[in-house]
């Protein structure tokens, strides 16, 4: 009965959603409002005023920097949330056979996998950095690069054969906390420098060179901060 109700509900909801989407302007047609209004302005002025060949990046870091600031804050907050929620219970003793404590009883890692992972890690890291640094010209950017970097670090932690530590534990804990907050903090810095140099909070400098530098700085902040957050999430889940 409940299943049936759920089905009916979902069908009704789906019908409504489809009705809405069907009535939207046809995607891809050049005269739909999406393309003629604000986006047209971005396309026209994005390279010059937006300061990035990749218009997505121009929108993210320049036109709508405050949105991105909010987004990195959400990511950072998610880590804080997980830390706050999991560690309160403390390291819990668990019973039962199906629960695997990753810290003590680990699935043995095949040496081949371990070797391949270690071999690939530098290349993955390089790719991540490339995505971050070139994000204003090519597809990609801080978010994507950060996720790749974070995935690489988690991969290492899982398969490198070491059982006790994730890589970021190699860092002093104080520094780790700073890196995790890198995303919101670089945007905070941007907000203030923008005010000092061009009179608006969250504005990028006018000079092309400095603008590019600032963008790279932001991408690195987002990326490295994001990677640290992801590793932190993984760690908190594993230990919590």
């Amino acid at each position: 009965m409940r299943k049936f109700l759920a089905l009916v509900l979902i069908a009704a909801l789906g019908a409504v959603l489809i009705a809405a989407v069907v009535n939207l302007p046809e995607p891809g047609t050049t005269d739909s409002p999406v393309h003629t209004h604000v986006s047209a302005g971005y396309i026209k002025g994005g390279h010059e005023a937006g300061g990035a060949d990749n218009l997505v990046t121009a929108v993210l870091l320049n036109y709508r920097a405050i949105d991105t600031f909010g987004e990195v804050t959400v990511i950072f907050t998610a880590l804080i949330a997980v830390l706050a929620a999991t560690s309160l219970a403390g390291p819990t003793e668990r019973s039962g056979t199906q629960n695997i404590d990753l810290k003590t009883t680990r699935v043995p890692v095949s040496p081949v996998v371990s070797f391949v992972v270690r071999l690939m890690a530098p290349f993955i890291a390089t790719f991540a950095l490339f995505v971050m640094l070139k994000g204003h010209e090519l597809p990609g950017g801080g978010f994507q690069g950060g996720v790749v970097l974070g995935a690489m670090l988690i991969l290492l932690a899982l398969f490198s054969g070491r059982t006790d530590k994730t890589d970021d534990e190699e860092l002093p804990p104080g520094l780790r906390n700073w890196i995790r907050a890198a995303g919101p903090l670089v945007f905070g810095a941007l907000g203030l420098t923008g005010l000092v140099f061009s009179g608006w909070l969250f504005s990028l400098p006018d000079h092309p060179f400095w603008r590019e530098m600032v963008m790279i700085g932001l991408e690195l902040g987002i990326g490295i901060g994001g990677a640290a957050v992801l590793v932190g999430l993984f760690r908190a889940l594993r230990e919590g």
Partner: protein
Amino acid sequence: MSAAAHGLALVVLVPIVGGALIPALFRRFPTAAWGFALASSALTLAISISLIRRLLAEGPFSYAAGGWPPPYGVALHFDRFGAAIAVFSMITLLVLIFSRRYIPAVVPIARIPLYYALVMINLGGMNGFLVTGDLFNLFVFMEVFSVSAYALVAMARGPQAGLAAIKYLLLGAVSSLLVLFAIGLIFAQTGTLNMADAAGRLDAAASIVPTALALGALTIGFMVKAALFPLHVWLPDAHASAPAPVSALLSAVVVKAGVIGIIRTLQTFSDHGSLQLMPLQSLLIWLGAIAVLWGAVAALVQSDLKRLLAYSTVTNIGYIFIGLGIGSATAASGAAVHIINHAVIKAALFLAAGALIHQSGLRHIDDLRGLGERMPLSALALGVALLAVAGVPPTAGFVGKWQIGLGALETGRPLLMGVVIVGGLLVLTYGVRIINTLFFRPPLHVRVVTSREAPPSMLAAILLLAASSFLLGLAGKPMLDFVAPAILPLTDTG
């Protein structure tokens, strides 16, 4: 460009960056995080006051973040609803003061910085939500304060808090998704995310179906955040099991974001020529009326003090929505003022209750018998706030109820006036019950006899809030005058 306009971005930037700094700065000295959080929220408060001064001098104003003119950049916009940030910052400040002695007792010492970081980020998200003039930005900051709110609920001890936080998280995520979906629909039809711009361009949209659906999705999404009946189910659990200062913050401030979200929605859609808001408004009235009665009745049967207070939030949200739904100048301004007044009252209630529970270690109402004798000031503050939440004149709760009742009469709904009054009476019933228990019954529990009055940091926050929840009632007229220009766009449709 006067300096005050930068404040519009700074009220967001300062608390969030402050919050992000806390875990890094205070890893070694967790308890010192308190002072830093206090300072940054005080700074935020000062900035928001300067914003209000400019608002009074020049009227509503905008700030183009990054210097990009709307609709290309994100426009922050400050109007008289946005002025609520001053009150919310003030409440956050007081909650922080209260937390000084409370939080170390419930949170492991190493995690204290996390708590303060979350509170500050929550404040930043709230401020961003209130001052933004951009739909997507609205969503982003909604996520900022929502995620921090989920986490704050989860900070309490015990499995109950965890479950409550999960429940809150699930419903919150669905509501966020609905809002995001609606924003997508609006963007697809108008090509813009700027609220004012979108409002002007919606009329030209090819089809009315997606517009109506966007309106519906926004309404439902914000209804969950505002905990309007019947989407309030997450609230009693979350607000009852969270640590007291968090409950105060959530009930006083965070649910109001949903209300303001609905106000923004109504403002955006009120220009629409062919879309009638009338059915939506009568729906809000009905749901509000049921919420008033249901919340009050449910609160009556609670034995847990904080759970009872949580249900009183359901009631008061109902009042606000009745006022918004009626939509006449009288009722809408009453609802707008009640947003603020209820924030103050509810913060007073939860903090006072938190102090009583904290000092005695008991949370069931019956166990608290005679505690008024041992903790006279906290109990007195709770009593005053209870009378205020019931709307006894001339307390702060009366203003909204009077205006809403009057609005119901003006629009020819005498029964609705009856609901407003009966709701107040029911609230008064349990208010009296608690006052009775605290002051006029002999102690039942040995821990009551050994309890001591709350420490000064807690008392300061409680007494200030309780006094405000009385005094704001006397300031009803200036407050109504203040919101009057802001509710005009709402009343045009009503």
